[in-house]
């Protein structure tokens, strides 16, 4: 009969110390494509055409990207003849304002001013999450569950999943919000004590894309619940999830402003 405890102890620590130090585990994992506006040829709309989720539009001859609709399929990168769309490892895309997911040439961020200090301070070292699947493809659940595996070991950061919404600080929603899940989702949110936060987790929950429209789609959380963190990604990887959680409790800075990724 194997001695499981001994085997476990012998194996030693598997957990990374990221984000303090150590690997984030996402070596080679592609993120949202980056736009090099200087390389973009005016009037060409191949990226707009190539995008299956209409995340790219053209305004005055230049592309405007809504990363809240991006499913990281990399098609625009393949189609752009000028190399203006580039593959990147930008996946830590959690933001507080939905508008920060829209690429903007003129960057001016004054949003940091009104951070909700009191709430964040009370949850900084201990956050309890209730997850609700509002119609996902299960890739988001797969990555959220991975947070509890020995590599990411979410507990080390003082963040826990709780079975009951009564004990939850954060509602983590995946999926575009299908019709049968609409009331169920609201009931879960109402069962949570205040102060309570909401994270739109994955591109479906941010904008519905590509599961919006149709007879049984949804458009994500906009207009349904007050969202504190928007995290696109298809699915967002575990390190992107951790970044977004730590962003919520003000332990990591936001990386993306005006659709642009901080170096």
């Amino acid at each position, binding site marked *: *009969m*194997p001695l*499981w*405890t001994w*085997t*476990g102890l012998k*194996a030693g620590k*598997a957990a990374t110390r990221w984000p303090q130090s150590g690997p984030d*585990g*996402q*070596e*080679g*994992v*592609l993120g949202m494509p980056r736009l090099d506006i200087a390389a973009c040829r005016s009037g060409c709309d191949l990226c707009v055409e190539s995008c*299956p989720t209409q995340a790219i539009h053209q305004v005055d001859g230049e592309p405007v990207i809504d990363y809240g609709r991006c*499913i*990281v*399929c*990399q*098609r625009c990168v*393949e189609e752009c003849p000028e190399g203006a769309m580039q*593959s990147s490892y930008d996946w830590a895309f959690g933001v507080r304002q939905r508008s920060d997911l829209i690429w903007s040439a003129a960057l001016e961020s004054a949003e940091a001013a009104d951070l909700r200090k009191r709430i964040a301070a009370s949850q900084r070292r201990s956050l309890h999450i*209730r*997850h*609700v*699947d*509002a*119609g*996902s*493809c*299960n*890739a*988001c*659940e797969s*990555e959220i569950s*991975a947070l*509890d*595996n*020995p*590599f*990411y070991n979410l507990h080390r950061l003082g963040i826990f*999943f709780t*079975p*009951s919404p009564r004990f939850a600080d954060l509602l983590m929603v995946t*999926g575009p919000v*299908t*019709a*049968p*899940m609409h*009331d*169920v989702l609201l009931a*879960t949110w109402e069962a949570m004590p205040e102060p309570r936060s909401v994270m739109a987790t994955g591109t479906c929950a941010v904008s519905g894309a*590509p*599961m919006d429209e*149709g*007879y*049984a789609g949804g458009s994500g959380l906009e207009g349904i619940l007050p969202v504190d963190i928007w995290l696109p990604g*298809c*699915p967002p*990887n575990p390190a992107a999830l951790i970044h977004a959680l730590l962003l919520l409790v003000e332990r990591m800075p936001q990386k993306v402003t005006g659709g642009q990724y901080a170096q």
Partner: protein
Amino acid sequence: MNMHSPMNNCSIRSVTAGQLAAVAQECLDQQMRFLMAWHDWEGQQCVVRYLLSQKDNPEFVLLELRGTDTIPSLAALVPLLGWYEREMQDLGGLHFTGHPEPFPLIIHEGFSIPQPPLGINGSSGHLSGLYQPPTMPEVQGDQVQDLYWGPVRADVVETGEFHYSYIGEAILHYHPRLFFKHRGMEARFAGQDAQRSVYLAERVSGVGSACHALAYCQAVENAWGIEVPPRAQLLRVILVELERLYNHFHYFGQLSKTTTLKVGAATGFLMEEKVKQLAGELTGSRYLRSLLRVGGLRRDLQAEHLAHALEPIIDEGEAYLDRLQQTATHLDRLMGTGVLSPSAAFDQGATGPVARASGLDRDLRRDHPYAAYHKLRFNVPVRQKGDAMARSDVRGEALREAIALLVQASGRLKAGPVHAEFDVPGGAQQGLGWAETPRGTLIYAVRIEDGRLQRVKIKSPSFSNWRVFPLTVHGTNMMDYAINEASFGLTIAGCDR
């Protein structure tokens, strides 16, 4: 109508509504097995198709029933068709006479839709309504209690609502209500460019992204007669076997979690993570997405040294499976739990490891070879007992076979193109594509006109196994429920679509 073109890999037999039951019985007598049924509207004509596999013959059999939307139900004769018929009623507006369970399946009580979204006039309007608890058969008795568990349940899980009638520990009746997550995936394909829609297939069931993309691409390649180059065929095997590997490690993590083997659970989930990290490094996507395209792969992969990269995973994986196999407390909980008899598995349409654990020796990779499987050697593990132990044994061996296939396939890679050049044909075509996913048979049937998809039918393995699962719960006990569920390894997204 002459717009229908024959589907490859199938011998097609036209039947009338009057002949249907007799023909179905004849097929069963010849040891054929029904795989799925779906409807289509070709012009204004309703077509219902039944797909069957033959014993020891890679060619499928397709029964076609044209010109009526009122059809005698086969559910009493072929129980697994019950759900397909109910789905066609809900979404296609068809009528099945004499159905033993004539209730809606996809559309919940309290919900409605202006017109059937896969009906004669196509989709318009949106599903709407208010949540209502399901009407359940009344179970009466002194001590009987009813438990509605869900749709939001403990832990990070997919949405579903489970109803139990029980006395103390003993479960009298169990009913899962699914389809909260129904996203209308099949309708999403309609009207889309067939080459561009791989991304939709990848998002039907996230942990089956590679297999869904493969089955979809193969269906379109089948319709268009495209020959995929050998290097791409081997790389496709590598992608789907990596998917199998991380899914099976997850399975053992989850199973150990339910038998409260903490280190066993942690090890399984850590192994899953290692495979996903390897997948991320190799392909840029932990879920092996954005790689497959119609005709091959979107870009080449440097997978020649995969065997070397897999070495630590092979060693740790072997040791892990051995330890589980020697842990009496774990095995005790699996033996005799959730027994599925071979006849129930056959009649109700069990698939994949669940079917193979109940003595049904079927594997699409061997019986209907695709990609490069005909060039590779592998065993198909089968057990007879049909309990959680047998299901776990089959998965364990399948995990080892997946590793062996990865090593073989990467060792046989030769330089060459990774996609075929082709012109999109005009006119109408139909195609069938399939893959043996970690959970069993996945089939895509497509009908294309001038490069655009007209109808896509997805038969997912979890749709089959969710139908079977409750049969192993009735009459068992609460303590075993979670273990039994984990031993099936189901997903809900694939089932709900």
